[in-house]
């Protein structure tokens, strides 16, 4: 029964200590947070009802995100700002709701993630690595391990001495986890990356627009 429910999209950041929360634990965390509020949230029906929460694009463990989103459904009216304030009052300090809005795009339209990478390593080697004509890695899929060439899937921008912007495919069809690229780099260079922070700053749709 989904009569009279309104879907809303909650944009949030997941930074600092919260980057170690796995995708599954994050759902649990939001469900509990919602139960700590009086937000009129819709529960799945059936034998074992639970609070409905849909994370639009899971973030991999160890990665921060500043424009993540999830959808819930309201069973009665509540203003977007109330939902935001109530959630922020009960969420852990490193997860913050930044905006609540009406969903514009479907999560199936998602195609790319934009990551801001700040990194401390041998930049000469890193640049040479990114310029290779092929970057072959082993990728685990549902059907087992296969070899993928990352090169055609990655785009980089603004390479400086301490970082760059990285575009990688994300979504229902095909996803590349940024850690694949950096593991490949460590293998290539034979050196351990001294320090790396990966922040997902944007999620893009197939038509090139930002996921809203």
């Amino acid at each position: 029964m989904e009569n009279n429910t309104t879907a809303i999209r909650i944009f949030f950041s997941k930074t600092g200590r919260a980057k170690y929360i796995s995708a599954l634990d994050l759902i649990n965390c939001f469900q509990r947070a919602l139960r700590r509020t009086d937000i009129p949230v819709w529960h799945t029906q059936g034998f074992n009802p639970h609070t409905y929460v849909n994370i639009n694009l899971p973030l991999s463990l160890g990665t921060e995100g500043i424009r993540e989103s999830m959808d819930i459904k309201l069973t009665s009216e509540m203003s977007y700002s109330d939902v935001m304030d109530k959630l922020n009052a009960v969420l852990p300090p490193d997860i913050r709701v930044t905006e609540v809005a009406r969903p514009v795009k479907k999560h199936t339209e998602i195609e790319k993630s934009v990551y801001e990478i700040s990194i401390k390593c041998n930049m000469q080697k890193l640049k040479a690595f990114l310029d290779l004509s092929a970057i072959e890695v082993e990728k685990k899929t549902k059907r087992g391990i296969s070899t993928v060439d990352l090169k055609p899937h990655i785009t980089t921008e603004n390479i400086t001495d301490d970082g760059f912007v990285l575009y990688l495919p994300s979504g229902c069809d095909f996803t590349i986890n940024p850690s694949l690229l950096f593991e490949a780099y460590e293998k290539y260079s034979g050196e351990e990356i001294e320090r790396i922070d990966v922040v997902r700053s944007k999620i893009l749709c197939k038509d090139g627009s930002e996921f809203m």
Partner: protein
Amino acid sequence: MIKEKLDKILLKVQKPSRYIGGEVNSVIKDKSKVDIRYAFCFPDTYDIGMSHLGMKILYSLKNSKPNYWCERVFMPLPDMEEAMRENDIPLYGLESLDPIKDFDFIGFTLQYELCYTNILSMLDLAGLSVYSKDRKDLFPIVMGGGPCVCNAEPIADFFDLFVLGEGEEVNLELMELALTFKKNGGTKQEFLEKAAQIEGVYVPSLYDVSYNDDGTVSAITPKCGAPAKVKKRIIADFDSVYSPDSFVVPFTQIVHDRSVVEVLRGCIRGCRFCQAGFIYRPFREKSKKTIVEQVKNLTESTGYDEVSLCSLSTSDYSDIEGLLCDITDYTDAKGVNLSLPSLRIDNFSDEVVKKIKSVRQSGLTFAPEAGSQRLRDVINKNITEEDIMKSCKIAFEGGYSSVKLYFMLGLPTETLDDIAAIKTLADKIIDLYYTIERRSKRGISISISLSTFIPKPFTPFEFEPQATKEQIDERQKYLLDIVRSKGGKRIDVSWSHYETTILEAVFARGDRRVSAVIYDAWKNGCKLDGWNEYFKPEIWDQAFINTGIDKAFYANRTRSYDETAPWDHMDMLFTKDFLISENKKAHEEKTTAHCREKCAGCGINKCLGKACFKYGE
């Protein structure tokens, strides 16, 4: 600093969120405004420690004082410990991520004996010497609390002080004392001598222990004004005892992932093997109103969709039906599950049984502990076959089809007839199942879980020997043979490992000399002994050889009533004479009525200044 180092290693270890804090309701304070910092250490992993109610209570209590800051610390699993050592990360508090060696207190809760090597690991990982005598500075003060303190002798050399009994008040008194020392100065020795004057505080270095030629304890002599007997602390007004309004809610799944409300302390039953049943006396309850309020507060502050009632025997709550009705009124409306571990349902009205059935329950569990009524009388386990059958009938009619039964092997006076009775009982339950018309469509399954009896201090069985490995092996084999000969498909038998059981037995009734074994085993790589995958029996065996300590002397020897026990300077507020009389009654196969029916005369009522119950009204 530590945060940056952690960022380098956390993605390489299993379930990193348990090593980084930041959970909802965890307490962050401004260091510059805090006078006393306390590292509350649970000497086992996060998943286990975070499930422990005592820690939640004391954590919230200390943090309720604005100038005290209590943080949580757990035992890292080997992958994390290795990564920490490689990267020079000392053990840190989960809230501030600061090294705990700079804290004022490092407090361990001692819930079970098999965690002792973890304590040494954690002290070492913190960058501290494991022996108290090698830690010359006043701070950090390394202290211990919890049930194992009733005989802390095997670990006495590692600790500066212990707290005997309930910690709610005495913890704060110790922190106050530390505060005056911080302001006025003083040495560790001066602090410990002062602390020993606080009721419930045991400073082991202020007691000399001498031994007889036969290895038994000759005398325990206090010095520097320490009391001859350390008196256990109890909270007299239990209904108004501090109880937290919120719990830290972990990100990762832990063992007991729910809110927990304590309904009563102590136990009226007096099962003779059960240490908890004696050391947590006297029996005290919270009022219904208080309990329901705490259920509400915790549900609302944690967001958990399950709440559990906690006590040694919730069925003994004086108005259990009324309590369950009041709680389910709230939990049903909220869509919260109420879980009731170890609740006897045989005396309940149909209406309450229906209410409980609406609660999600995992299965039906009984702990008859012994197969025959004779042996149940010996151990004073007041559950009869009729009680079990009655509960099973109710449960089977409600659709249950599996029963779990807990037994102990090696109980005093046990014979093979008592073992055979375990199988007979299982058979009767199976027969009962097939007489129930409304039973489930599934076949019945019974699982029998066998543990080995461990004699514990402050129980009537503290004088008894633990059965030897040969005896236990023989009894296990006997039971397995008769189970397999008939009805084996429906009955599943599992048992505990003797190697860990005997360690527990040695530590439980050990004296100070046993610390050498613990140190040696730890030095050679033992830790996480309660985990099958990490337990290293051959290193333990070698440690006993290296230190010349005889397991059998501590575990398998009958102790006379007049022997000085290593724990005789602990006063649990009931008398040794009572334990002796209970021991004699056990050998006469005589039971003792539970406390509500008739006072058994243990002597605990003296600390209350009145009878525990109103009799004859």
